[in-house]
């Protein structure tokens, strides 16, 4: 247990760990302090000079990010001296900034905009021309660099040095010619975190650029289903669709970061491929059909279910409740490992978001979740069967899933429970029935640490009222 100290910030009493970062203590206590270079996940640089504070008994202002909490210290950042210091510093930050906010993707969540409204001098004192730099640089891994907008806070260079340790970014040249430069290209799988930590619009995501204004987006706090790590993420969406995934701070799992693979998990949520109701396969073309028809065809057949590992604990529970005491066969399709087991930071080779929850639910209900059970189910497929395959939301290895599809061909009625017609091989199925995606359902999944992480629902982009347990109700009709 670390020692706690009490100190005063603008007259408000704050309790924090002794020796912990002064700026962090203030921010954690909900005090707004202007800052660019400080980031809780990176080392202290002290280059932006925005978080200046005055302390009783200390002759000069100093940056709070480079100071530590001590017992009884009295710190202020609302004095006239500090205010004029911040104003002057900000005017230097804006010296060569192009002020192209109307076309900038960061507008609305930009540190410069926010602090300009608060501390800006509004009338420019600049008589010299601004220094122009390259505005459109593709630095790799879906990250675009606009060197003009950069204020040289060095968060990005510290990220590649300290977090990924790949050392791709540096600050080249000197004075007002200094600019962020990439050595060859970005090559780490965490590059898009640079977009998140950039306090201005210098680093933007190629995927999100020019797609949507941030003030039209709502954020859904949920969990990434890209692999078993289960990072806490925010999905930004509005009625036009989902647009991006950003990490949200989770002390126990992902800290401040997430991987680039996880940034793509939103893409199937909204889009042309989503299902709005049941669809029937007419010679390779899926056309809308009344679900009742599927229902009728399934009557009298032996129902077999192959579940995916991407469902929530609650969905499994409800599913097994529905088929309790009935003669349905259930097996679990486990996604194969992809890439190395663990890349040392966050990404894991096991791509099953809720394998642990699935296994536990199978066990509790007295079913076998092993590969043997799946093989047994597949080998016993006959023309008197109606087989329901839950299509995993994220499929990294399509071939592996296609072999599963080829094995169910003998079944009399083949039904895919999916959020959309995601793979061309889904044409092997007779019917597609809709299920919700991960941002359209509430529930828990269990991550690699056996910790529960929540999925939260936002806006629906397809038919989402029916989940796997609804279709389980068709057993023994």
């Amino acid at each position, binding site marked *: 247990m670390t020692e706690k100290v009490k100190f005063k910030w603008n007259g408000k009493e704050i309790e924090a760990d002794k020796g912990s970062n002064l700026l962090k203590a203030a921010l954690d206590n909900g005090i707004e302090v202007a800052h660019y270079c400080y980031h809780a996940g990176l080392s202290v640089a002290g280059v932006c000079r925005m978080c200046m504070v005055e302390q009783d008994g200390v002759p000069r202002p100093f940056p709070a990010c480079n100071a530590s909490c001590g017992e009884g210290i009295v710190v202020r950042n609302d004095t006239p001296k500090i205010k004029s210091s911040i104003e002057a510093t900000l005017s230097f930050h804006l010296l060569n900034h192009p002020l192209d906010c109307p076309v900038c993707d960061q507008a609305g969540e930009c540190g410069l905009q926010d602090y300009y409204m608060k501390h800006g001098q509004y009338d420019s004192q600049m008589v010299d021309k601004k220094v122009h730099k390259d505005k459109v640089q593709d630095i790799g891994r879906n990250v675009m660099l606009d060197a003009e907008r950069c204020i040289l806070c060095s968060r990005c260079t510290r990220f590649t040095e300290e977090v990924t340790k790949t*050392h*791709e970014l*540096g*600050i*080249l*040249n000197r004075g007002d010619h200094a600019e962020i430069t990439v050595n060859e290209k970005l090559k780490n799988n965490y590059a898009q975190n640079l977009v998140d930590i950039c306090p201005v619009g210098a680093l933007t995501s190629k995927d999100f650029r020019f797609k949507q204004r941030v003030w039209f987006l709502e954020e859904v706090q949920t969990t990434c289903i890209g692999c078993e790590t289960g990072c806490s993420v925010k999905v930004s969406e509005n009625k036009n669709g989902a647009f991006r995934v950003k990490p949200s701070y989770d002390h126990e799992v992902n800290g401040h970061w997430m991987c680039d693979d996880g940034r793509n998990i939103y893409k199937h949520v909204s889009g042309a491929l989503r299902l709005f109701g049941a669809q029937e396969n007419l010679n390779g073309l899926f056309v809308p059909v009344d679900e009742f028809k599927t229902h009728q065809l399934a009557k009298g057949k032996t129902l077999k279910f192959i579940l995916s590992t991407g469902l929530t604990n609650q969905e499994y529970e409800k599913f097994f409740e529905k088929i309790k005491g009935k003669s349905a066969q259930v097996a679990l399709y486990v996604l194969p490992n992809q890439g190395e087991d663990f890349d040392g930071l966050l990404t894991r080779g096991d791509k099953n978001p809720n394998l642990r929850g699935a296994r536990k639910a199978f066990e509790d209900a007295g079913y076998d979740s092993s590969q043997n059970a799946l093989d047994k189910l597949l080998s016993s497929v006959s023309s008197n069967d109606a087989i329901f395959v839950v299509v995993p939301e994220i499929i990294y290895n399509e071939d592996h899933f296609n072999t599963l599809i080829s094995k169910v061909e003998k079944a009399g009625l083949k039904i895919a429970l999916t959020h959309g017609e995601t793979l061309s091989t889904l044409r092997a199925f007779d019917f597609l029935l809709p299920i919700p995606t991960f941002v359209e359902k509430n529930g828990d999944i269990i991550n690699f640490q056996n910790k529960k992480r929540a999925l939260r629902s936002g806006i629906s982009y397809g038919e989402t009222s029916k989940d796997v347990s609804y279709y389980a109700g068709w057993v023994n009709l």
Partner: protein
Amino acid sequence: MSKLEKIEFTAENLARYKEYLTRYDDIESALLPTLHLAQEQFGWLPDHIVKYLAELMGIPEIHIKEVISFYDMLYDTPVGRNIVHVCTNITCSMFGGREIYQGLLKHYETDFLTPTRDGRISIQKMECLGACEIAPCMRLNNDFLGNVDLQTAIHKIDELP
């Protein structure tokens, strides 16, 4: 120098590099003298030499590039065999340093740091060379030249190899 050619320090320079390492506590401190050494041997510091140094010293390439781009006397563009530094800081400017610089560029039909066609010299204007007492001053490679006018400057430069 083609990229396929193996780039490395000569045995003599490698010994000098090893000696640099003994001078400092950490290897980063030895970077500056090593870069000057490399520039002495290779003329300038293109990417493949930076790569060689990065492997030799175990410092990320981008850090070496940061240092090279920071200092005016480390070159990441090709330069001539001889470097002519013309001081254009305040004292030398008052004594005609800028005119000498412009005159030299015109005489040798070249531009800032661009080597002349025969690859003999590169002319670079500098901030204070620290020799205001002999303003306007120049540096021809490692030798100072003071109280110059354009004609003596051209005369002296023509004597360079």
